[in-house]
């Protein structure tokens, strides 16, 4: 009897997940460099710990904030306090990284680059998880989660606009190609979203047709499955030859932008990858509508269209949206590969960066991609919850 009570009371003193994250934060601060300094953008880097990278009393402030955040995360503090600590930690990290970059950069050197080091990335990772964990514990409503995302985006935009980070290497890379960046950002988002929309426009009606014919459905799902197993690089590549041929031989095709390289193969490949999850989740969504409910719709005197629009689609919607979420996040990631086949997008920077061994340029492409995928996931999770009316209200 006494033993479980003892164990419970011991467990009550520390928070297991919080303690793990706090340990990562502490290790990041004490044993990993906050910043990396390079004489030029492709030279090897040299690490600088927080107390080396920050001027004046800032190392002490940084240490105190870290200690407080660590203590709060370890303790059984309630979700609000944990959230406040994690957010304060993130903002402090943002300030420290900006300040470290300005401090370390030798005055007048046009070539030197300062980037966040392993300590900064580790702390970012742990504090983001702690923020997410606190938000989950707060049990925010779907609109609350979107509001949290908007606030986070606002803070990020504030940092970028304030110039606090302008000495960071990634932003140096951005500054020298800001026009190209904005253009490729839009191409990237456009490729991801429009290939998804095309897949929805084709896939949802296709699924509704397939649903009625079992043999056709099995054949179609098998074919789509095979398509899905082709590695994405290969699929992009496979499309080059046929599209080049079409572009050269079908009148008018070239005028539409269909060619071996460029946006067309990227778009078609993304579309092909999107189709299976959309068709599959639509079929699953409709199958989740019970026979009894369908029959009730008939018995009430609904026409086939009324049954579809008022009963079947609303009930299938959460499952369909789950498929759309998967596809959107997947497309945002896959669109990077469009950069390889001349399709544009943020992949352009990633592959340029790889070929020049310029890590900062790779990050200029990768970081916004991750942020977009992350935001899309949060927005769609909220939409899915909102559409699941029968369980949430």
């Amino acid at each position, binding site marked *: 009897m006494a033993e479980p009570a003892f164990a419970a009371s011991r467990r009550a003193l520390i928070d297991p997940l919080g303690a793990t994250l706090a340990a990562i934060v502490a290790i990041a601060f004490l044993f990993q460099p906050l910043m990396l300094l390079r004489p030029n953008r492709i030279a090897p880097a040299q690490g600088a710990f927080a107390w080396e990278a920050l001027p004046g009393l800032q190392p002490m402030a940084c240490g105190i904030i870290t200690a407080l955040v660590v203590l709060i995360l370890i303790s059984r503090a309630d979700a609000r306090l944990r959230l406040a600590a994690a957010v304060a930690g993130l903002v402090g990290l943002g300030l420290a990284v900006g300040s470290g970059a300005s401090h370390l950069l030798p005055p007048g050197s046009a070539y030197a680059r300062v980037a966040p080091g392993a300590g900064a990335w580790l702390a970012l990772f742990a504090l983001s998880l702690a923020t997410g964990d606190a938000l989950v514990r707060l049990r925010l409503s779907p609109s609350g989660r979107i509001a949290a995302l908007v606030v986070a985006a606002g803070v990020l935009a504030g940092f970028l606009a304030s110039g606090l980070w302008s000495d960071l290497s990634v932003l140096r890379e951005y500054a020298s190609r800001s026009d190209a960046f904005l253009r490729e950002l839009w191409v990237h988002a456009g490729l991801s979203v429009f290939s998804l929309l095309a897949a929805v426009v084709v896939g949802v009606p296709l699924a509704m047709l397939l649903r009625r014919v079992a043999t056709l459905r099995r054949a179609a799902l098998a074919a789509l499955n095979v398509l899905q197993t082709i590695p994405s690089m290969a699929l992009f590549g496979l499309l080059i030859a046929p599209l080049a041929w079409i572009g050269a031989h079908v009148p008018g095709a070239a005028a539409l932008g269909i060619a071996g390289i460029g946006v067309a193969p990227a778009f078609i490949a993304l579309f092909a990858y999107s189709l299976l999850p959309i068709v599959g989740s639509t079929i699953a969504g409709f199958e989740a509508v019970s026979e*009894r409910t369908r029959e*009730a*719709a008939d*018995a*009430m*005197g609904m026409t086939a269209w*009324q049954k579809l629009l008022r009963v079947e689609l609303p009930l299938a919607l959460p499952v369909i949206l789950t498929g759309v979420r998967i596809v959107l996040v997947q497309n945002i990631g896959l669109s990077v590969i469009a950069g390889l086949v001349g399709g544009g997008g943020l992949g352009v920077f990633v592959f340029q960066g790889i070929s020049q061994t310029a890590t900062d340029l790779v990050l200029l492409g990768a970081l916004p991609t991750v942020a977009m995928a992350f935001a899309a996931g949060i927005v769609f999770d909220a939409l899915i919850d909102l559409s699941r009316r*029968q369980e949430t209200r």
Partner: protein
Amino acid sequence: MIDFDSVSRLYGDRPAVADVSLRVGTGEIAVIVGTSGSGKTTLLRMVNRLVEPSSGRILIGGRDNRTLPAHALRRGIGYAIQGHGLFPHRTVAENIATVPSLLGWDAKRISARVDELLSLFHLDPALFRDRMPHQLSGGQQQRIGVARALAAEPPVLLMDEPFGALDPIIREKAQEDLLAIQKAYGTTIILVTHDMDEALHLGTRIGVMDAGRLVQYDVPHAIVAAPATDFVRSLLGAGDRAFHLLSLSTVEEMIESGEAPGAAIPADMSMRAALSESLWSRREALPVAKDGRVIGRVTRAALERRGAGPQ
């Protein structure tokens, strides 16, 4: 009101319903009873054309039910099934409003009708209007299912084992509600059940189905007194026949003059309940009261004679 004219329905070459003819008069409750698989559901679903007959025809108010498009026909026929079949993504009010909104009623009329029906089924509109079906008990869901079927005041109501999933007490309450509603609206009802007690309690006429055939269709008294086949007899249950018979009439029709000891029973008590009361309270005769006044008595001997079968 509803005429089945030599209706059959085949699945493959097996008849689920075989050559059934019957007539349900306006305002009647016809109860179709039979064992599982005897074709009751198929018979019922042919009325609103969820199933089409293989041969024969069904007339509603003298018109073949195939003259209207199926969806238009169904909007004029209420349909309530076991396990309710409510739309899980719609509130109670939206569920009840299904047919009225298909018929294009204006919002005010719909919401007044929803509140009226909720009150009729003893559910506080303010409390239940905006609930989702999963927030209701089984009995409440069942009532909303019947309310939805009645929403557009259909002249005909079809019910397929509507009380099958309810516990005995709630079930009895639901049966009383149904009788009250039928009186209030004069709805013609066809109800399917496998429970002979329920059939005897609710039906103005009872049809007994056996392997797709209608083996007897008559008033409850005749079913009990003169079962047409051994199958009907077995449905009635060999041990309960006298009690079935007694349960069909009230003591009012057998009051005689005279004195009796003890507390009076009401004149609308069934003979079955009166016999039970007489046995339990060890009284050979019971006083009968109507409107609070004792108007005579019933004797156990007379009750026993009413429960006797043919010689």
